[in-house]
């Protein structure tokens, strides 16, 4: 395999694909949104429980490729306990990381696992896989019961 491919499918990513964390629905969420990638049929629903402006709990349901599933899984781990403005700032950094648009990215404390997605920028066709759950989360924060599409 090429180095790029090894960088894409690292063990941590595969682990989150095989055993996604927080992969369940929240029965009475404060916010919820649905995301859909019509190109590949990937589908994710993000559920949020808030405590003021702090993310008390965040979970997801749905099916997708290794990259979108691992991204959703690691997103839920990373955002739990963050304020809404911190969550938005982390999404911005993550977006820069996977698109390769922001050059060298400095990930803050507790964000180390996001680094596993740094190989995605070599695969422009897969950026949407990595960002689907995040866009869905952003939609949930903007507006309850939103549906987003990558297209």
């Amino acid at each position, binding site marked *: 395999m*090429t180095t790029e*491919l090894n960088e894409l*499918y690292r063990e941590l990513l595969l682990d989150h694909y095989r055993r996604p964390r927080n992969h369940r629905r929240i029965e009475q969420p404060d916010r919820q949104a649905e995301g859909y990638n019509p*190109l590949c*049929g*990937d589908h994710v629903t993000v559920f949020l429980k808030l405590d003021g402006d702090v993310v008390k709990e965040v979970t997801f349901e749905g099916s997708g490729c*290794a990259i979108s*599933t691992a991204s959703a899984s690691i997103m839920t781990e990373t955002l739990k306990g963050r304020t809404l403005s911190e969550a938005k700032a982390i999404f911005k950094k993550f977006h820069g990381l996977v698109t390769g648009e922001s050059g060298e990215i400095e990930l803050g404390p507790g964000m180390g696992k996001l680094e596993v997605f740094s190989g995605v920028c070599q695969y422009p066709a897969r950026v949407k896989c990595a960002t689907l759950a995040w866009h869905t989360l952003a939609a949930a924060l903007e507006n309850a019961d939103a549906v987003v599409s990558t297209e």
Partner: protein
Amino acid sequence: MKSVTAPSIVESSSRRTPSFDVARVRLDFPALQQRVHGHPLIYLDNAATTQKAQAVINALRRFYERDNSNVHRGIHTLSQRATEAYEQARSKVQQFISARDPEEVVFVRGTTEAINLVAQTYGRSHVRAGDEILISGMEHHSNIVPWQILCEQAGACLRVAPITDRGELMMEEYERLLGPRTKLVAVAHVSNVLGTINPVEQVISLAHQRSIPVLVDGAQAVPHTPVDVRELDCDFYAFSGHKLFGPTGIGVLYGKAALLDEMPPYQGGGDMISSVTFAKTTYNRVPYKFEAGTPHVAGAIGLGAAVDYVSKLGLNAVAAYEGDLMSYATDALSTIPQVRLIGTAPHKAAVLSFVIAGVHPHDAGTILDDLGIAIRTGHHCAQPLMDRFGVPATCRASLAFYNTEQEVDALIAGIGRVIEVFR
């Protein structure tokens, strides 16, 4: 993975189909002579689009370098050359599909436009509120959505003939759905996802017994099997040039002359008129009535060259060679326990859809691409069919006559690699 070498290919293929020299055929396709990520390109996405023969590329070059001009209006030499070449291409297509007359061949952008044309002209003038259009459960979005639009406009209803678990049309159900309100049947000749070859002769004759016209979506059929529209007796037949080794942006709508004649025009503009005053316009005769504006002249000429190329190879020889290759590939895929084939009809052409247990098709596609193997992953513009088989997406390897058993072996090895990564 070794690069394909000519002698071994000749040996292995001559074992079964001695008339087909795949090694020589491959040399006609410049795009096949490249490496991707350090591996020889293995192009297995032919149902999406095919590679272009050098003869097609040369025809496009020659047109733009020598004969480039507009058609049907200039008195000068170049315009005459262009017109002649354009009309010659129409005659080539006519002979290729055994149409009665060149005027039954309308040049369009592709299969999608051909179907939209029929929906908006024949459909708008014949389909009324409460009428029905009948399609099959294995249609491409391009043979679903134009009919949905028509149904919405007319207040008509879209009916869908179901398919079996193997991916075959349920003929009794189809026949049962042919009713007094059915105004048109539209069905794929070959499924782009399952590879199923539909019994279109039977589909057509059952519809004709009730005087219902039939449109056949032939996009996936013409590159693989000889098509004779008179023998089929279909009323409309649609296909795309780019899936037939020709250029993109050009396709064909075949229609029986009597039907085309009475249909209203599709788009208005130049070339489709006989005379225009502000009070009234008289339309040109078919096929020009349906070719408003400057057509894709170079595309049509390129398609003519593609038709020549394929005819020279002989579609019977192509079908025999591809049949052997399909069995070889089907057997090979069936040896991998993690692989589930989607579409197992006994009569299939060139398409192998499959899913790998525990691996999303997108990931498989990325890993195979890393090995130089191009397959398609996703829903293949057939979401209702994905729902039917309960999968969000599949991997699809689709063959052409320039593919080899060695390439199939490389695909099998590649799938092994995919499984290893996700173990």
